[in-house]
């Protein structure tokens, strides 16, 4: 066994170990935290890439912790989807970490620097773990790691509203946790195993068998509710706008960019890895149910976003809508649709990450949060605003940005179902992207084409380079992966096929 075969655990351990080292080093010298985190996430990112490469060349990797074979040992299973998620997570975290260097110095009190990075690394570790685990209970544990650290991160500024938002998030998150825990219990009663692969095999024999099938349904229902809360799927999204808008912007970027996607990942794992696709698609129409919910999420989320005056809150509601796109793609359970959903995880991560980082830069430079006050920023912060515009266009799904490609796949997926509901879904996708345009164009118009409120504000005053670089990388990614969509698709497509078993 070479070191390469340990990659699945390495990607999880790097952030987790960093999380332990950070407070110690931070105690000695706070300035060391940021480089440390950047270096470690860079390693995690490289490791994720290597992991993806070996998954692409060798197929699904099963890694048994300590060499114990499942069901006794704990297994890490990295399929295309897991490797894909690892890349997204480590990439966006890396961007957030680079950004944090300047941003945190102003936004947070000095004493909170070390806790901030610790929590960030914990959260990353949790997300990585949830992506690569092959064990249902492990999933739960990793979810708690990421959830609890994210609760704390939301409140880390110590502002009045942030704390309350964090508490609200915590309560709902805890309910979600409890529900998934109950779901796990049911499945364990039925099968006596928690390994996903085993579960899948054993559950298959229980479909439609008297009382057991009822138990199955109850378990599924608990999972759906629990993870829907984590993924902020409408109507269980109520915590998201507060939490995401109140967190520091670097954290908002991670939360909106990937954390809720991990919830989506859990949903996907439950639907397609634990239960069989034919069960959730045909026997009981769970997927079509969540598709409908997702469609409503797209519309309602966008409508809410339109009525916002606060920039970050608007971005948060936009996340509600876009998690709808992702879940819709998953729920369509067709080759194109699921590919689109999975692809959108990546595309939305980049775009929304970029948008939140830009919002952070605006707050950093001007202290403005209100959309109507942004007039004239196009001259003041040209690069930041250009990045904002590109990312916003990607959110709307304008070619040649990445968002268009996911819209294309989602649209194909909706039509591929060949049912009348598919036509409704594509209606929702198209209407959703139009509504998205409405609220993003409002911001862009304000930035570029409006008389600034205070003339003297409009001096060239660009975001510091340390913050600008991640913003520009993300914005560049929105364009590059729109023009070269093959790159993410090379993972997303096999991931969807594997999940659906086609």
């Amino acid at each position, binding site marked *: 066994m070479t070191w390469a075969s340990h990659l699945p655990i390495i990607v999880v351990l790097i952030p987790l170990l960093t999380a332990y080292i950070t407070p110690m080093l931070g105690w000695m010298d706070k300035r060391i935290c940021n480089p440390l985190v950047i270096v470690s996430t860079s390693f995690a990112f490289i490791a994720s890439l290597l992991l993806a490469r070996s998954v692409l060349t060798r197929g699904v990797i099963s890694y048994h912790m300590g060499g114990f074979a499942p069901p006794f040992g704990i297994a890490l299973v990295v399929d295309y989807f897991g490797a894909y998620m690892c890349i997204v997570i480590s990439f966006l975290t890396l961007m957030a970490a680079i950004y944090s260097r300047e941003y945190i110095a102003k936004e947070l009190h000095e004493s909170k620097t070390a806790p901030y990075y610790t929590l960030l690394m914990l959260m990353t570790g949790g997300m990585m773990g949830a992506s690569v685990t092959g064990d249902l209970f492990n999933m739960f544990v990793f979810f708690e790691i990421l959830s*609890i650290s994210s609760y704390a991160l939301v409140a880390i500024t110590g502002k009045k*509203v942030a704390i*309350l938002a964090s508490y609200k998030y*915590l309560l709902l998150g805890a309910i979600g946790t409890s529900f998934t825990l*109950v779901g796990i*219990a049911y499945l364990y009663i039925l099968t006596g195993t928690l390994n996903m692969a085993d579960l899948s095999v054993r559950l298959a024999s229980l479909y439609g068998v008297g009382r057991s099938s009822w138990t199955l349904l109850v378990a599924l229902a608990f999972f759906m509710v629990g993870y829907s809360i984590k993924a902020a799927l409408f109507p269980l999204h109520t915590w998201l706008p507060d939490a995401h808008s109140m967190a520091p912007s670097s954290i908002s970027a991670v939360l909106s960019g990937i954390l809720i996607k991990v919830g989506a990942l859990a949903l996907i794992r439950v639907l397609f890895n634990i239960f069989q696709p034919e069960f959730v698609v045909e026997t009981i129409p769970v997927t079509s149910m969540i598709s409908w919910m997702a469609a409503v999420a797209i519309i309602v989320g966008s409508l809410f976003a339109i009525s916002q005056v606060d920039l970050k809150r608007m971005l948060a509601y936009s996340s509600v809508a876009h998690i709808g796109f992702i879940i819709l793609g998953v729920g369509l359970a067709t080759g194109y649709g699921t590919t689109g959903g999975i692809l959108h995880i990546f595309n939305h991560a980049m775009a929304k990450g970029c948008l939140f980082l830009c919002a952070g830069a605006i707050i950093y430079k001007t202290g403005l949060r209100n959309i109507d006050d942004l007039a004239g920023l196009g001259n003041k912060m040209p690069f930041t605003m250009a990045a904002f515009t590109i990312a916003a266009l990607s959110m709307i799904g304008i070619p040649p940005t990445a968002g268009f490609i996911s819209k294309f796949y989602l649209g194909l997926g909706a039509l591929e179902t060949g049912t009348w509901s598919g036509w409704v879904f594509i209606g929702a996708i198209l209407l959703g992207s139009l509504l998205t345009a409405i609220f993003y164009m409002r911001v862009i118009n304000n930035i570029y084409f409006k008389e600034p409120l205070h003339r003297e504000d409009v001096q060239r005053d660009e975001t510091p380079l340390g913050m600008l670089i991640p913003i520009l990388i993300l914005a560049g990614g929105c364009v590059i992966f729109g023009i070269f969509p093959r790159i993410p698709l090379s993972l997303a497509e096999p991931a969807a096929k594997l999940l659906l078993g086609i």
Partner: protein
Amino acid sequence: MVNFGFLLGHYNYWAVVVLFLIGLYAMIVKKNLIKKFMGLNIMDTSIFLFYISMGDVEGGVSPIIAHGGGSDVIYVNPLPSVLILTAIVVAISTTALALSLIIKIYEEYGTLDSDRLVELM
């Protein structure tokens, strides 16, 4: 006809269900943030009990080979208990975080009444 035997035979699950609902009720209805959280704890506890009682086997002994028992000895399934230890740790950390948040909220707002807090926000 209702199978009372079946129902009564699973009394432990009924207790779990009742506790779960009490917890959920408290979380939704109570205005006080601490009471809400107590509701969450009750809910968590019900789940812990659920796990432990499902792992228990009537007449089983704890799964330690030191007893020297043969093949006729029935062991209790240890895994749910192990799992629940982890879950308890999680619950505790959640509780700790929640309580610290509550303290901060009280410091900032001077109240823990959720209605009042919404007004103050």
